[in-house]
């Protein structure tokens, strides 16, 4: 069996012909396998969805219980047979519930890793290396300029700034699923127990993370709190809210943004960020290289992001590599496009 007989890129997403399923389809399909809950990978309207319990829960929180016709929970490491093809889910270390999907038939194993990172994250299970023939990788930060510092160091920058400007509120832009909760957990690990305030858009998902065991400490909704009385407080909000009218009601806030893109000065300036925090839920360049080597795959398919550089590097170490030119996945926003208004 050739790899292309087991998995092929189509406009709707990665398709497995023998099992008739799609992985992370970007348009409604009959049967979908979903790696994680970010909105560019997990969309509503499929006939049936197979995903981890956490991913299914988060889709229900975002889209409502009717987000799919049928749902089936994938247990980590436990294969599911569909028409002679074995599918198994394994931790990807990206966000809570995120999984790589291993696809196996006739002795050929392809791993679709979705989005992943190797750095430790207190809010989700660590990435598991899977040996395979073909490894499908993202390349969001697929350039050698991207090396993410330890998240703890970046959070220390935030806490130092609060000590320096105790009279100013610190607005931290962070994506509502994963990044926000990770930043909170890192702040707690750094020993800060102050109340952290949340923008309405991230309340439900953050409550879900806490329910699932993340140690997030005392949280309070921003709604109903006095925006003028936030001196020295940390407020988490979606990145779009930093430039919104919403943020203008704070007196002289320090605007921060937690994202891997903050490594590039112009990206921070373009967003009007005063305190860039380089915290990412995607693999950086060394992690991409490390992971590709550890899978021992002889062929690498690169999905979305800066695929040119990663393909070039793979080829330079003798691996067959090609870009899949997948459309519909965010190669720009850190993990996901801004959720439409009204979605939690």
């Amino acid at each position, binding site marked *: 069996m050739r790899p292309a007989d087991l998995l092929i890129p189509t406009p709707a997403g990665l398709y497995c012909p023998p099992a008739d399923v799609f992985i992370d389809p970007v348009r409604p399909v009959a049967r979908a396998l979903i790696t994680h809950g970010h909105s560019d990978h997990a969309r509503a309207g499929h006939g049936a969805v197979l995903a981890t319990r956490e991913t299914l829960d988060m889709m229900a929180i975002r889209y409502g219980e009717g987000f799919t016709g049928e749902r089936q929970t994938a247990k980590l490491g436990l294969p599911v047979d569909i028409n002679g093809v074995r599918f198994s889910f394994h931790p990807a270390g990206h966000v809570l519930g995120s999984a790589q999907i291993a696809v196996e038939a006739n002795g050929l194993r392809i791993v679709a890793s979705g989005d992943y990172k190797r750095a430790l994250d207190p809010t989700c299970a660590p990435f598991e290396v899977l040996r395979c023939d073909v490894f499908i990788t993202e390349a969001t930060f697929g350039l050698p*300029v991207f090396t993410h510092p330890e998240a703890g160091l970046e959070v220390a920058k935030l806490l130092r700034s609060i000590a320096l400007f105790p009279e100013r509120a610190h607005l931290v832009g962070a994506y509502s699923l994963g990044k926000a909760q990770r930043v909170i957990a890192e702040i707690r690990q750094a020993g800060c127990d102050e109340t952290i305030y949340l923008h309405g858009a991230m309340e439900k998902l953050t409550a879900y993370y806490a329910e699932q065991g993340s140690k997030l400490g005392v949280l309070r909704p921003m709604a109903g709190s006095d925006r003028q009385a936030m001196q020295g407080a940390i407020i988490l909000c979606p990145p779009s809210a930093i430039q919104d009218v919403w943020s203008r009601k704070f007196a002289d806030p320090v605007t921060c943004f937690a994202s891997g893109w903050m490594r*590039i000065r*112009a990206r921070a300036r*373009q967003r009007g960020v005063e305190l860039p925090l380089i915290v990412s839920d995607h693999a950086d360049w060394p992690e991409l290289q490390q992971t590709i080597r550890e899978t021992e795959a002889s062929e690498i398919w690169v999905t979305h992001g*800066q695929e040119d550089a990663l393909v070039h590097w793979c080829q330079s170490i003798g691996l067959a590599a090609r870009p899949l030119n997948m459309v519909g996945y965010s190669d720009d926003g850190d993990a996901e496009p801004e959720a439409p208004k009204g979605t939690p």
Partner: protein
Amino acid sequence: MNRFAALIDRLGYEPGRNAKIRLLVDYFATTPDPDRGYALAAMAGTLDFGQAKPALLRSLISERTDPTLFALSYDYVGDLSETIALMWPASNTQSAQRELGLGEVVALLSNTKKADIPALLANLLDGLDETGRWAMLKLITGGLRIGISSRLAKTALAQGADIEVDAIEQVWHGLTPPYEALFLWLEGKAPAPLSGNPAPFRPVMLSHAIEDSDFVSLNSADFVAEWKWDGIRVQATAGTDATGKTVTKLYSRAGEDISDAFPDIIDALMGFDGAIDGELLVVRDGKVESFNALQQRLNRKKVTPKLMAEYPAAICVYDLLYADGEDWRDKPFTERRERLEQLVAQLKSPRIELSPVFDIPSWEVLAALRASPEGKVTPQEAEAIEGCMIKRRDSPYLAGRPKGLWFKWKRDPFIVDAVLMYARRGHGKRSSFYSDFTFGVWRDGENGPELVPVGKAYFGFTDQELAEIDRFVRKHTVNRFGPVREIVHEPDLGLVFEVAFEGIGPSTRHRSGLAMRFPRISRLRWDKPPREADRIETLTALSAGGRKKS
């Protein structure tokens, strides 16, 4: 070095002007000499490390990284220094080295032989962290691009010492880095340094664009009008040095000394003593030529006699700042103008002309004049006219952009609808966005109508519009040539730009044989299919003369 790095790092993220000044005031007050003086020089653009050219930096990084990966990274980051700083391999000697002060780094760089510069730079870069590497590379390549102008740095110095910034400008041109005499004076420890330059630059006065409401509130009788020529603003200054020799200088509006590029002008000012403000133009046989002609003389360190003969430069003078050993800037415009006319008459040079002044009987009369200057000047000269300047008769000459004194009233730009053909990522503020656009118009090709590129634009749009175009580019790429993306441009599929520009002339550099002056994207025509964009004949007609009434 770390202090300087921290300063420019902070400044780079700080959006507010006042906050920037606060950071600078604090830095100057707490940093010792000579470091603070070199930092000031870096910001004022008066430090020059001739040896550290971008080519040298590229060669240093290419010895340490894969060239393809470097090219892709540079294209993405959009800033050479930052890309190198981020990709420079981490060194384990970093902590072992003693931190060098900015002054020590500058001394090392200036005292090292050219052949040893690469090794020195590599060694310095090894000893720094990313921010330090970035700051050092910015420093040695010049142009920090952190939103700090020479003027802003001087404003911070003035604020720190509680004096007017003009007082600093007065002595500035006689000073050199690391400016120890300047700091001694600012701190009250020494008298003001003498301006060592007998022909110093004086900050220019700028105008505001006139608005519709101004015509209602302003009385035209209080003003005079002049043509707004499409040249470059210059200041010509002459004075006598300590040895009795006359020194004549030509400055750009920002105070850059451009005398060497215009010896013809310097010669024409023989016998002049004072400072005049005017527009630098190419004037052949008494007729002003368009900006295209002037462009041949700009950005040259030296000129040949041939070039001077082909493109003879002249100044159209309109104001007087200094004369007869006296500062004229506080006197009203009409008085300055009277003395200016006498001085120009004495020079008797075709290279120094007076800008004509008109009374304004009513705004309507001026409007008619602005719409068709052809009534007053030749059609060729009309092409070099950008509009009108409107100046209060009693206006003093004030540095900066004072309100209510001088106005500019530009002619309406030319407009053409063109189709987006190629895009590449921008640099600086726009880095990593697709923001440099090549656009084309229709012509008849061998196989029917085809688009031919006619120009490039990289501004004119809002940030919101840029995000929209960027999205369009990413979704509609049909081809890639290195960093350049070809964007779909078919009769019914593509993006039409309304492009505004100030003029158009023949050019051998472009496939269409035409070059636009100051093109910018004035509107996105999402509503318009590419087939309805303009044709090349429209542009050729404009180039041949004949201004379209818009």
